[in-house]
Every structure is written in structure tokens, then in C-alpha cells.
């Protein structure tokens, strides 16, 4: 298995009102072919900006990718022409969004919207493309697909719409599917159906997945590697088993401790004191240090690098660095 996507030191900044918001401040990670990679973190940590950067969909102005490299199948995405990029989006990398109602066009029939994507990327006639669309809808277990292609988005339930989105995005057999909070707008029983479907499709079509979510339970169920983001940086990266058993970064520990969960009872929930920093004026050094109860000497001076704590577990925290080991 090779590397499908590799991101190095990605920096995406937004410029507004004379301020520079460092939404991504040096993000590095890799997705294996056939892998399912989870990106977790709280609102504003840069998860979605990472996804939009990969597709080069950052609205500009105000945003801009200022530094870094995104290699997809060996090609540097940031150096592709706009034409090349357009044939990559939807065909090689596609994305499903959080709100299926706003990502489908309300004035077109389901079949026409789906056929458009297929016609564009596979150069098929409309009738063939519509047939493909029906087949794809059947594959995502939509009952009565020939009727659904003639319906409009508002006639479908939330779960059905998300199925349509998945069918549409997978109709060109992309190598990478980016799913940005794909089930946040759905009820848990419908969420379970959609997650099941994404897993099934991944297996059948050998699509790699970048899953963005704030729900750690979904990551545990779907992913094999996980990165935790905080204030525009990855603070910890590991295999899903390692990170769920031993979250190492103080922020990850806080996050895991804060979840009221169905499997176990906690008397009080762990609380991370303070608030997320303003990204136009982030704290020096480790961006988590003002809220960290373990902070010591080097934390407020230089941003910590990723330290390796086991063969597949990396933590960006001085607690795991040599500085600490020598004390």
C-alpha cells in the first residue's frame, strides 16, 4: 500500500480587517491508499479548512494557502492549473458536506444533478449518465431509485439526501472521499445507516476516506488513523487503538475526558480551563500552553515538534520530548 495523499507543512491564512488569521499553521499528515483517516477537534480548529485546502476551494480573498505541499498520487495539487484541478475535483477527490440540503441544488431533479457530474467527468450521453445515476442510487440502497431520480431534494428526508450525496460523489469512483461531518445533521439511527453505507462503499470501491468530525465515537468506529487538531495544528497523531487507549497530549486527554459517554459513567466530566485562543494573535510556543496544567519551561517559547512515542504514535508536546527526559 502506497501513500495516496501527503500534506506537508500546510499553512492556510485568512486576511481580514488588517489581521492575519492563521487557520492552518503547518499541518502535516499522510493518508494511505485504502485508509480511513480521522481529523478531530473542536469548532474553529482548522478541520474544514484542511479539507477545503486539499480541494483548493479556500475562498480567496480572504483566504490563501501561503506555504506547504499537498501531494496527491505524487502530484503537487498546489501546482496544478485551474483546469487540471477542475478535473480532479469530483473525479479523483470528492467531498460530502455536513448539510445535505444546502449541498444539493433545490431547483434541479436528483437525476439531473447526478447526471451532470457523470457527463462531465466520464463524457457520457445524458441517457447513459442517468442510467448510471439510477444504478448508483440503488447501490446506496435507495428504494425505488427510478422514481427518486425524478424527485427534487426537498421531497427526500435528511438521511435520503445524504445517501444521494454519497451516490453522487462516488459515481466517478474517486480515490479519495472527504467527508466533512457527514452525519452531524442526522439522527443517531440514521447516522448509523449512513456510517454503515460509507464503510460498505469504501470496501467495494476501494476509496480512501478523510473523515472530519467532532464526534470521537464516529472516529472510533470508522477510522484507522486519527489526528487531533487544536488551533490550526495537529497536536497528536496515532493509530485509532493507541489514541483511544492512551491519549497523550494534554489537550487530547482533556477532550477524551470531557465526553459524557454511553459506555461508562463518570461522576464529573473533565474540564479544560480557559478558551480557544484567537488565531489572529495566537500564544507563542505551544498554542495550548495557556490552558495546560502540565506546562513547564520550554512551552511558551518554541512550538513543540512532533515527538514519536511509539512506532505509530506522535505527540506535539514537550512532555514527551528529550528536554523532559533529561530532567
Amino acid at each position, binding site marked *: 500500500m502506497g501513500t495516496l495523499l501527503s500534506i506537508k507543512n500546510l499553512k492556510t491564512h485568512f486576511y481580514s480587517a488588517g489581521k492575519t488569521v492563521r487557520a492552518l499553521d503547518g499541518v502535516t499528515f499522510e493518508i494511505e491508499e485504502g485508509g480511513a483517516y480521522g481529523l478531530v477537534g473542536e469548532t474553529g480548529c482548522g478541520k474544514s479548512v484542511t479539507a477545503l485546502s486539499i480541494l483548493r476551494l479556500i475562498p480567496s480573498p480572504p483566504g490563501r494557502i501561503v506555504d506547504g505541499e499537498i501531494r496527491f498520487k505524487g502530484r503537487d495539487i498546489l501546482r496544478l492549473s485551474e483546469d487540471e484541478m477542475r478535473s480532479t475535483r469530483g473525479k479523483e477527490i470528492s467531498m460530502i458536506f455536513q448539510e445535505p440540503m444546502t449541498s444539493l441544488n433545490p431547483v434541479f431533479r436528483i437525476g439531473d444533478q447526478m447526471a451532470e457530474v457523470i457527463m462531465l467527468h466520464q463524457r457520457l450521453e445524458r441517457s447513459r449518465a442517468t442510467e448510471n445515476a439510477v444504478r448508483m442510487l440503488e447501490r446506496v440502497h435507495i428504494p425505488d431509485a427510478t422514481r427518486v431520480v425524478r424527485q427534487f431534494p426537498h421531497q427526500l428526508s435528511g438521511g435520503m439526501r445524504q445517501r444521494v450525496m454519497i451516490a453522487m460523489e462516488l459515481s466517478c469512483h474517486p480515490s479519495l472521499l472527504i467527508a466533512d461531518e457527514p452525519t452531524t445533521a442526522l439522527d443517531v439511527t440514521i447516522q448509523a445507516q449512513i456510517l454503515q453505507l460509507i464503510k460498505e462503499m469504501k470496501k467495494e470501491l476501494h476509496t480512501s476516506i478523510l473523515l472530519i468530525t467532532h464526534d470521537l*465515537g464516529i472516529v472510533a468506529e470508522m477510522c484507522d488513523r486519527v489526528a487531533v487538531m487544536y488551533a490550526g495544528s495537529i497536536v497528536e497523531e496515532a493509530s485509532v487503538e493507541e489514541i483511544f487507549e492512551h491519549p497523550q497530549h494534554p489537550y487530547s486527554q482533556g477532550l477524551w475526558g*470531557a*465526553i459524557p459517554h454511553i459506555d461508562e459513567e463518570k461522576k464529573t466530566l473533565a474540564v479544560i480551563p480557559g478558551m480557544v485562543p484567537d488565531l489572529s494573535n495566537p500564544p507563542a510556543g505551544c498554542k495550548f500552553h495557556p490552558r495546560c496544567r502540565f506546562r513547564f519551561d520550554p512551552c511558551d517559547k518554541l512550538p513543540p515538534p512532533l515527538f514519536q512515542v511509539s512506532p505509530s504514535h506522535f505527540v506535539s508536546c514537550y512532555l514527551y520530548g528529550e528536554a523532559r527526559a533529561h530532567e
Partner: protein
Amino acid sequence: MNEPMLEIKNLKKYFPVLRGWRQEKSFVRAVDGVSLSIARGETLGLVGESGCGKTTVGRLVLKLIEPTGGEILFEGKNLASLDRKEIHPLRQAFQIIFQDPFASLNPRMTVSEIVARPMEIHGLVEHAQRNDRTIRLLESVGLRPEHLTRYPHEFSGGQRQRIGIARALATQPKLIVADEPTSALDVSVQAQILNLLKQLQNDLGLTYLFISHNIGVIRHISDRVAVMYLGKVVEMAEKKMIFGSPSHPYTKALLAAVPSLDPRKKREDVILEGDVPSPMNPPSGCRFHTRCRYALPKCYDEEPFFHQVEEGRWIACHL
């Protein structure tokens, strides 16, 4: 269980809707015969998926909307039969915390006006003590006196929710309906608010009706849990019973649908098929029979009673 503080019996709320070009009147049966009770000092968690009627139950309990039928007994008084004037003095005993901390605070009022308003309406404090009391309320929810003169937009989501809680506490209520108070918040902020609500309950002896779709949150905060589906309570039991041995097929499916935090644990294969039917035209018999894997012939036409099956557990199912 000691004397119930709140008891609702066969509560119903139908919303009229006009359909089609003939404008025929039909009804959305949002709440259709719900009975439950909450004891003094306990937290009843009301859980269910969107559209099941849990928010409508919360609003009915506070008489923010008029019930179509049934009784709401608050400390023995039937609120359903009282009119607006009669209910006004009782209102200080029950308050609400809303889901959206952005929409539920008036953007043109300062924090001190927002928090003091309920006390003015009920004539609870002299003008001179008002400021003191407001400051004490803010401190009890973890805000500081200098926040008094600020406006809601100056606060983060978690802080706004704290303002909402302070406002709810202003009349020294006995019962608080918390309608999804943390669903707009990030997990770390949610943890702060849940801890605060628990601590306030301990300190002030509050009773909560806690409405949420987040099953983890419900498990954390509740003493007893009621599960709703399509306008009805299908199961109500002690928390340990609900989570240890769920009994109704819907409860089982709902709990099984929540992703586990243990990556090694495989999901049991009880994924519910299909969507929730429309409350405008609910299925006959047991409303869950269209999605129930155990459905018996009689589930199709006979509606199951909500009855007690063992100490501490009520259920509506033919099984």
C-alpha cells in the same frame, strides 16, 4: 420514589395544518398521550430523535403552549386547566433553559437587564437589592460582576448559556426544563455546562426535565430516562435499567446506534431500517411496528398500553 413534583397524564398536543389546494385541515400529532412523572430533586432525561415531540412536551409542561388534552399536575395543581392570569404567579416556580444561546438572549439588553428581568416581572426584589442579587446569580454560574454591563454578542456560546442559566435561576425555581442546553456547544464547553447544572442541582435542590437527543449526555445527567418515539413515550425507567438492560426494541436500537468510544468494539447488527414515519399520519397500532424487527401481527392494529412491567420500569410494547 417520593412525592412527584410534576406529573403529566395522557398529555396531547395536535398542531393543525392546512393541506392541499382545498386547505383541508389535518393535524400533526406532536405529542399523543404522554404520561410521566418527575420526583422532587431528580433529573428526568427525555430522549428521542428529531420530531419525536420531546421539545413540545417541554413547552407544554411550562404552559408555553396550550395542550390539546391531558393533565399537567405541578405540585398537585392542574396547570392544563388554568388560564394565563391564574398561571402567572406560578410561573416563577418553573423556568426553561433553551438550546440556542444565540437566539434566546435579547441582543439589545445588557446581561444585568436579562438576568434581573424575571425578578422584576414577579416583583421578587426591591430595587436596591436587585444589583446584589444579580451579581450573586452571575457568580453562581461562573461569570464575574464586570460582565453585568455587557451585551450578549460579547460572549462565547458557553458563556451565553451561563447567562441563560442565571436568568432561569433568578426566580428561584423548583423545576427547570432544559431543552438541549448543550447541543450547540463544543464537547469541552458542554462538559463545563453539564458540570455546572449538576452542581446547581446539588446546591439548590433543583428538579430537571432534561431534553436531549445526545444519549451520552442523557446518561451522564439523568436519574431516570424516558424514551420518546413519534409523540409517545415507549419506555421509561431508572437510568441503570435503560442503559443496562433496555427493553423496548426502539430503545435497544437507539442505544445500539450510538458509536462506541472503543475502536475494538464492533457494532452489533441492529441498525434500524428506514426513516421515522410522519407524525401527520402515524402508523396504526404500535407506531414503531414499521421499523421493528420483532413486530407481531397484533402490533399492526392494536396500540400497546404504557404499563409498568417491573419496579421502576414502564414500557409500551406487546412483547
